[in-house]
């Protein structure tokens, strides 16, 4: 790929001839395969047919080798573009004579091109993503410090005691749901929610925002070998893997940037509807099982049970 003006090491005419030679080579190779595909022509005798086929095949192979030879000759004429790009100080790196052992300069060029491309793609992606507002917190990212209004409350930084209080109050809300709070990894709260004898949910929080959830069965182990809460491994059962996906959808659905405690309450109310996971039939088809799974979806407003494939 030639970018801008080539330095005078490249024979432009040979270059264009080489491109034409590549096209010729491609067409002759295609002809070889066409000849093979078509097989033998219809002639009177079997011997005549075989001779005709072999002759055509040899002819196409010869043209391939001819074109390949022409391409090699031209590529030798084209020459190599020198790497003496005027990059000021970094160009001094190319003065190192031991090119094989320390290819610093060419690696530098590659890294630079790569990071340019990355920046370009990231710009495109952020343009696309900004069209959908997925902000759950009230902070504005990307706004420079000067323009950010000074009196904005940051709900991302809340005292841990406040978070504990909110969680304790929610714990007392429902009798069949118990919530245990711990902070094994810094200031993020980790909740272990036990819902009746049906399931256990591990909720990882970031101040009062719910970051991640994992849903597991009542009889599954939620601790690692060290006795710490296991926040990574998935459930062994397909039904709870499905409920985990739904819970992740729910934590993205319930959004209220200025009042995160209402969000947590709504999420827990939604979660509580799973107490009847195995007893409730689907509200749409009336059956209990669909592909071996009970109704795992709970509507966000009405909390009715649906199969994943039955939900509207």
């Amino acid at each position, binding site marked *: 790929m030639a970018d801008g003006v080539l330095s005078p090491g490249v024979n432009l005419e040979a270059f264009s001839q080489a491109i034409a030679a590549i096209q010729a080579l491609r067409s002759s190779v295609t002809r070889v395969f066409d000849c093979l595909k078509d097989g033998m022509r219809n002639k009177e005798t079997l011997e005549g047919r075989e001779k005709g086929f072999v002759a055509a095949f040899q002819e196409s192979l010869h043209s391939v080798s001819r074109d390949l030879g022409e391409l090699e000759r031209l590529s030798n004429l084209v020459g190599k573009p020198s790497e003496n790009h005027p990059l000021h100080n970094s160009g001094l790196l190319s003065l190192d004579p031991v090119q094989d052992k320390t290819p610093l300069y060419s690696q530098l060029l590659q890294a630079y091109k790569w990071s340019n491309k990355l920046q370009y793609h990231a710009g495109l992606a952020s343009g696309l993503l900004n069209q959908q507002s997925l902000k759950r917190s009230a902070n504005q990212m990307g706004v420079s410090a000067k323009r950010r209004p000074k009196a904005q409350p940051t709900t991302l930084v809340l005292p841990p005691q406040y978070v504990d209080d909110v969680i304790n109050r929610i714990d007392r809300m429902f009798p069949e749901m118990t919530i245990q709070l711990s902070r094994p990894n810094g200031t993020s709260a980790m909740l272990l929610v036990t819902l009746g004898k049906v399931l256990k949910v591990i909720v990882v929080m970031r101040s009062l925002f719910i970051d991640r959830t994992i849903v597991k069965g009542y009889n599954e182990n939620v601790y690692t070998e060290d006795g710490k809460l296991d926040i990574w491994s998935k459930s062994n059962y397909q039904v709870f893997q499905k409920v985990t996906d739904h819970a992740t959808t729910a934590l993205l659905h319930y959004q209220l940037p200025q009042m995160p405690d209402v969000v947590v309450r709504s999420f827990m109310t939604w979660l509580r509807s799973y107490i009847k996971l195995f007893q409730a039939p689907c509200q749409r088809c009336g*059956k*209990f099982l669909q592909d*071996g799974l009970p109704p795992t979806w709970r509507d966000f407003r009405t909390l009715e049970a649906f199969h994943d494939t039955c939900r509207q």
Partner: protein
Amino acid sequence: TGIPCDSLHSTGGGNVTQVPVAEGKSVQQTVEMLTRKLELLGAEKQGTFCVDCETYHTAASTMGQTGKLMYVMHNSEYPLSCFALFENGPCLIADAYFDTLMVKLKGFFQNAKANKIESRGTRYQYCDFLVKVGTVTMGPSARGISVEVEYCPCVIANDCWNLLMEFMQSFMGNHAPGVPSVFGTKHDSIYSPADTMVQYMELFNKIRKQQQVPVAGIR
């Protein structure tokens, strides 16, 4: 004595039932019909299973009352355990060495070797269900078919009964049974392997009482 942890999953709600042999077909053919229906549903074969049951008589003289029957059972799902139960009484879950202990207790418990009955067959997994279709044999003769269905994620027996029924109907059709007695007494307690073994024991007793030719008998 407790159960050593030897299975990958804890027991969920389970049900053991007997399927009658179809008209004009042998036990083998009925088993094949069932397994074919399961495979059509999408179940995967996962090895074999075996549940066996030996009967012991308590020596009447030592107890001063009529002898009671004790059953010692094994289940390949729990290979390190041994289950000992009385008909209406408690179920003991013991280590596998319990068998050798029974040999030492020959004076108190006599083994009725002719009554040994077992069920062997294939294990299938469908989504979160575990299905075991087995041929019940007593000695050399095949006496019936047992089907065990377990829904692993649910630990409360009563909760998932409707779910289990629906699943059983999908491959057993009309032979799906009614609520087993075990569920009636345990309202919200956690299902345990002992409940499965009690159901197997009742099933084996029923088959023993049947005539040699298997007759329709659904529980």
